[in-house]
C-alpha cells in the first residue's frame, strides 16, 4: 500500500536518540510524517511496512552497519525504489562513493546543517513522487486507461491470496471481442480502437467500484470481481456483454460488435488453486464460449474438492447460450 495520508512518510534510522529528537523538532514544520527506529536491524522491516517516501539512514550504528542496511533495502523488491539519504559523520569521498554505488540517493554529513538537510529531503521527496508516478504509469494501458497486463498480474495474485486466506468469494472474467480482426480490416484501426475504448468504458460503468478491470492484451479484457461468487459475477459480465452487443457504432451502424466471456468464480473457500491455474481455467472457458458460437458467457464454479484436479475433469463448463 502506498501512504494513506497526504503527507509523505519519512523513515529515520539512527541509533542516537538525540538525532531523533533533533530531527523531530527541526522537521516539525515540513509537510511530512516522521517515523523512526534506533535499531538498524529493524530498518528493512519498517521500510517494508511503511513504504516510506524517503529513508534517512545513519551509517555508523553499533548493531548493524548502515551500508548493510542500504544493501538489504536495495535487494528487497518492496523497498528498492525508496530514495535513501545517508547520514554520516564521515566526509571522505570513499564512503560517499560506497553509498552512491550501493544505491543511495544523497549523502549528508553530520553534524547537519539543518537548512541543507531540509532542502535535500525535499529534493528526495520530489524524486519519490516522480518515481511513484512513473510506476503508476507503467501499469496503465495507454489506449484504454485501464490497468495493463502487469497491473492485472499484480492485482490478481493479491486477490487470489486474499480469497485463499480468508475464504471469501472471488470471480474472474476474461472478455474477448468477437471477430476483432475483421473490424480492424474492414473499417480500419481507428474503428477497432474505438471498440476497445468503448468496451473499457463499459467494463467500468457496468461493474462495481471494487471490481478491477484490466486490458489483458490485444482485444482481451479481464475483470476481477472480489467478494463476488460466480452467479453474481455473471450478472455483471452479462450487463457488459449486453451493453456492447446493443451499442450502435457510428462508423459501422449495421455491424454490431459482440464479445465472448469466460468466467470462473468461487463462493469460497478454496485453498489449493494458484492464480495461474485459475486464469488458465478462465481462458479455457473463454475458448469454449468461442467454440460454441461466440457472444456468450461460459461459467464454472470452483469448489474446494475438484480443485486438485484440472477443471476440465471436475465441473463441466456450462455454456449459456443467449441470442443477443
Amino acid at each position: 500500500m502506498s501512504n494513506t495520508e497526504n503527507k509523505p512518510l519519512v523513515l529515520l534510522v539512527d541509533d542516537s536518540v538525540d538525532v531523533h529528537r533533533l530531527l523531530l523538532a527541526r522537521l516539525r514544520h515540513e509537510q511530512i510524517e516522521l517515523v523512526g527506529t534506533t535499531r538498524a536491524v529493524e530498518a528493512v522491516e519498517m521500510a517494508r511496512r511503511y513504504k516510506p517516501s524517503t529513508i534517512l539512514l545513519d551509517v555508523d550504528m553499533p548493531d548493524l552497519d548502515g551500508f548493510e542496511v542500504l544493501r538489504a533495502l536495495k535487494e528487497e523488491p518492496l523497498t528498492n525504489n525508496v530514495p535513501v539519504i545517508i547520514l554520516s559523520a564521515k566526509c571522505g569521498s570513499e564512503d560517499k562513493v560506497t553509498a552512491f554505488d550501493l544505491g543511495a540517493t544523497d549523502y549528508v554529513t553530520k553534524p547537519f546543517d539543518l537548512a541543507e538537510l531540509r532542502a535535500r529531503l525535499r529534493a528526495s521527496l520530489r524524486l519519490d513522487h516522480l518515481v511513484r508516478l512513473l510506476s503508476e504509469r507503467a501499469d496503465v494501458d495507454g489506449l484504454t486507461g485501464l490497468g495493463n497486463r502487469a497491473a492485472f498480474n499484480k492485482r490478481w495474485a493479491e486477490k487470489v491470496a486474499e480469497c485463499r486466506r480468508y475464504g471469501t468469494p472471488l470471480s474472474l472474467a476474461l472478455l474477448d471481442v468477437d471477430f476483432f480482426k475483421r473490424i480492424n480490416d474492414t473499417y480500419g484501426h481507428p474503428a477497432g480502437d474505438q471498440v476497445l475504448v468503448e468496451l473499457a468504458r463499459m467494463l467500468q460503468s457496468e461493474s462495481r467500484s471494487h471490481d478491477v478491470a484490466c486490458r489483458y492484451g490485444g482485444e482481451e479484457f479481464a475483470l476481477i470481481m472480489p467478494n463476488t461468487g460466480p452467479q453474481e459475477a455473471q450478472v455483471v459480465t452479462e450487463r457488459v456483454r449486453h451493453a456492447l452487443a446493443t451499442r450502435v457504432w457510428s462508423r459501422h451502424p449495421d455491424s454490431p460488435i459482440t464479445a465472448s466471456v469466460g468466467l470462473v468464480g468461487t463462493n469460497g473457500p478454496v485453498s489449493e488453486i494458484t492464480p495461474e491455474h485459475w486464469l488458465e481455467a478462465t481462458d479455457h472457458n473463454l475458448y469454449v464460449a468461442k467454440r460454441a458460437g461466440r457472444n456468450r458467457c461460459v461459467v464454472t464454479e470452483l469448489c474446494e474438492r475438484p480443485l486438485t484436479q484440472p477443471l476440465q475433469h471436475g465441473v463441466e463448463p456450462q455454456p449459456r447460450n443467449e441470442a443477443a
Partner: protein
Amino acid sequence: MMTEVSPSHSNVAKRPGGGPPDVYFSELAGDPEMAELIQSFVNEIPERVRLVERHWERHELGELRRIAHQLKGACGGYGFPQVGQAAAKLENGLSREENADLESVAERVRELVEMCRRVRAS
C-alpha cells in the same frame, strides 16, 4: 524514545580550581526553535558523564565506546562541536578494544568529562 532524565547535582559542573569559568555555549543558542532542545540535552549531560565514568571505572570499553559515539553525534547536533570532537577522539581511541592504549584512553576520558562539565545551554 526519551531516555530517563535524572539530574544528579553531585556531578554538575564544578569550576576547575577556581580558574576562569571557561564554559561552552551552544552555537545554536540563538535559534529559538532549538532553545528547549538544547536545554534538555544540557540537563542530561551530568547523567551521561556519570555513565562515561562508570563504564571507565568498570573497564567496560565497548559500552564506553557506545556512549562516546552517541555523545559525538549529540554534541555536534546540539551545537557543541568541540565537545563532540573530544567524544570522537575517545571513540577512536577505543576503536580496537583489544589493543586500546589505556593511558591515552584515560587522558581522553578525563578531557571529555572535563569539557562536558563546562557545557551550558545559555
